């Protein structure tokens, strides 16, 4: 499929587009062409300008200079509705749903099929939604409200929304970040069908293997500038990484040898009816323990119960030998436990507040003198952590809401790391984070462990689990089914346990 240069004209293109937000130059003279029947990947680090580019194509942002070309003629989109009417479907990075409305209404808002006299055809709306859900292979009730959906399901609704009309151009900003393997596979096969029918596709992901699997061409951005556009066949993963980062990456899973001390976190027979049962394990000082398993095995639920965000029905949690009051995050925090949650946007950040405020929120005690928050301390702390995590921002006083998706994730990490916990629980620590920073986060976790921190990590990223963990705990359908030391943890052994093929391996 490398013949499209000479072939059809691009459906949608950007020509020398620049876009600034105040002093931030998010895009500088970027050009991009989307051809019918071709899947085009957009690669770049966190904050490189990928989402901004997409929003320019979607009519959310208007370019400061340069043009958007539709079928080779310049157009001005006055809003998302214009782009949609031109046949452009967009899946945004952050699901934006109407929590109070049903899934069906969320998908068809403003475009509901109608009966005579302009009345909404409710039956048709529900039928069409059910059909979309079947096509994506998920069982979601079209009439349930969007409130309370998991991020993965929210993402599914966004995808269904984009597929709900005959798009000529399908744009997807990290649609797979929260999806399970089978859902991703479904999505890809649906996209393949659309592409075969002649739709142009633009795809963003930080998982390089997905880019190589789905796309025929890849454009790289770095710091808002266009770096290259190549046919995918001409590149290796390493080439792509080099284009994104501008240098060679060091070792990918920098695991340090650490001295393992006594147990810092002990969980005993923790049970929550219908979700998980009889979960017991220890995490010792200096140790990184991974909690692996399929999406839905109950891993996030376990760590939330450990931290006290969710109640447990039975069981105990001890930190440094002291029993925690169950169901109290405050007690957990006082005991030195920190939890970086999975759903960062909803549970982790106050979008309107500044970066430094957000980072300081969890550690008010440390930046307070005599009851007042000291701004200089707050700033110092925020500045420290933003350097450590390579946060890309304009001013620390900017609101978190304007950061790129991956950089928002880093703020949540910083916020919890800054509490200097003795037990750190991270749920999907590197989801949505670019390859370069991912290695940086791993390095950080590793050195924290070396300093005596106990780390419990929930991750769906198998290389991450195998590369970083001293011990792997595997969950299957709400139970802990295996405990594998680093030496015995392999892709096969973890997967076997996670799919429930050998449930008896659990070391007593």
């Amino acid at each position, binding site marked *: 499929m490398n013949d499209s240069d000479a072939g059809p004209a691009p459906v949608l293109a950007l020509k020398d587009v620049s876009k600034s937000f105040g002093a931030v130059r998010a895009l500088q003279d970027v050009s991009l062409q989307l051809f019918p029947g071709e899947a085009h990947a957009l690669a770049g680090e966190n904050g490189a300008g990928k989402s901004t580019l997409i929003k320019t194509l979607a009519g*959310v942002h208007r370019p400061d200079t340069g043009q958007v070309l539709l079928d080779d003629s310049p157009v001005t989109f006055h*809003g*998302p*509705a*214009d782009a*949609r009417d031109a046949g452009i479907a967009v899946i*945004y990075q952050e699901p*934006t*749903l*109407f*929590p*109070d*409305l049903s899934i069906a*209404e969320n998908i068809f*808002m*403003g475009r*509901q099929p*109608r009966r005579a006299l*302009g*009345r*909404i055809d409710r039956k048709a709306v529900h039928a069409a939604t059910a059909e979309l*859900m*079947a096509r994506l*292979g998920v*069982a979601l*009730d079209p009439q*349930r*409200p969007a*409130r*309370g*959906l*998991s991020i*993965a*399901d929210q993402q599914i609704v966004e995808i269904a929304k984009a597929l709900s009309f005959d798009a000529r151009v399908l744009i997807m900003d990290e649609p797979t970040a929260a*999806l*399970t*393997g*089978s859902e*991703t*596979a479904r999505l890809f096969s649906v996209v393949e069908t659309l592409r075969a029918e002649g739709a142009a596709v633009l795809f963003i992901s930080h*998982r*390089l*293997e997905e880019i190589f699997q789905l796309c025929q061409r890849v454009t790289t951005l770095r710091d808002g500038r266009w770096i290259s556009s190549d046919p995918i066949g001409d590149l290796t993963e390493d080439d792509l990484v080099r284009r994104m980062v501008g240098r060679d990456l060091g070792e990918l899973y920098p695991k340090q040898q650490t001295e393992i001390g006594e147990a810092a976190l002990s969980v005993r027979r923790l049970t929550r009816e219908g*979700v998980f049962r009889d979960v017991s394990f220890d995490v010792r000082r200096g140790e990184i323990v991974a909690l*692996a*398993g*399929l*999406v*839905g095995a109950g891993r996030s639920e376990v760590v939330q119960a450990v931290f006290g965000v969710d109640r447990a029905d039975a069981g105990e949690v001890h930190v440094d030998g002291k029993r925690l009051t169950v169901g109290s995050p405050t007690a957990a925090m006082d005991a030195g436990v920190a939890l970086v949650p999975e759903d960062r946007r909803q549970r982790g950040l106050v979008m309107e507040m500044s970066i430094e405020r957000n980072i300081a929120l969890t550690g008010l005690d440390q930046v307070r003198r005599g009851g007042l928050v000291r701004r200089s301390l707050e700033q110092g702390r925020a500045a420290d952590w933003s350097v450590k995590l390579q946060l890309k921002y304009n001013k620390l006083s900017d609101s978190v809401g304007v950061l790129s998706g991956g950089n928002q994730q880093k703020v949540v990490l910083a916020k919890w790391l800054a509490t200097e916990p003795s037990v750190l629980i991270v749920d999907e620590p590197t989801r949505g984070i670019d390859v370069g920073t991912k290695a940086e986060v791993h390095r950080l976790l590793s050195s924290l462990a070396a300093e005596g921190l106990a780390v419990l990590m929930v*991750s*769906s*990223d*198998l*290389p991450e*689990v195998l590369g970083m963990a001293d011990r792997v705990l595997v969950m299957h359908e709400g139970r802990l089914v295996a405990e594998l030391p680093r030496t015995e943890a392999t*892709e096969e052994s*973890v*997967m076997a346990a*996670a*799919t429930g093929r050998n449930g008896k391996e659990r070391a007593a």
Partner: protein
Amino acid sequence: MKTALSALEKPSAAPAPEKSDARNLVDAVFRARELSIGGALVLLILGTWLTNHSFLDSQGVKDLLLNSSILVLLAVGQSVVVATRNIDLSVGSVVGLTAFTCGDFVSGTSHGPLTVMLLGIAIGALCGLVSGALVSIGKVPALVVTLGMLYVVQGIDYALADGGQINAVNLPDPVLSLGSGSILGIPYLPLISVAVLAATAYFLRTYRSGRELYAIGSSPEAARLAGIPIRRRVLVAYVFSGAIAGLAGALWLARFGTVVANAASGWELTVVSAVVVGGVAITGGVGSVWGAALGALLLTTISGALIVLKVDPFWEQAITGALLILAITADRLVQVRTTNALRKRSRR
């Protein structure tokens, strides 16, 4: 080699149709709200009737209907605005202004009820247009705009009235009979309110623009990305609320005949209370006009009952206030609870 763990997952079986208990739960919550208001209403009516039978004689029922119909109407208009996560505090003043100007206009003439209603609607819609434009296009917070409008409209009203009042004797008979007449024993006023109520409810449920009002209130950001013309919809909501307040003003004139400049002053809070008590969330996106109407009926009945029971009218305000707080607290708690319950019921 870069296999994500999830990629190896066993193929999920054909999606079992999810038991739609999530949907049922939400329905149940709504029904619970309307049922509890309905229940409270029945208990209140029964209790008052047991103490004083005149509460439910034919005059008593008629009073109840007449008294509630204007509040129901205003609650319908207010719900539409509140659904979009806005508020209209100027309705009380608008009622006062239209009642007075309409009265002034028809005094000593032979104009009919239709003219009065149309004039009222026009004046009200104009007020709504001003508030709506400031909120939607000017992007000034709704609370500020409509609080300002409350005083501006009141000021105009006082200036026009100049200390005078409208007297029933000067009004044409057909106008007065709009307020006192009835079909089959049912007075016109409640009929008009119910007609407006039913039409609005139908519109909000079955038309795209009606659903979009809820969408805007539920998440303005998502509404923007969905390409909903937010400004236009909010503007129209305000014009509608104003027009309804204008109609209410005309009906006020027809019902009372004698109108002073500060008619209906202070009603805005009663209306907002009725709407919120009726389950329209003050944070937008949730609730029905039927619920709001029930809320209005409840508040009217409470004040009627207090009069019959010879309780100091001061208590009426205290009770309305308490109900408002109760309703908002309940909304908040219910939202947190249902979110948790729904999250638990999600598969992952």
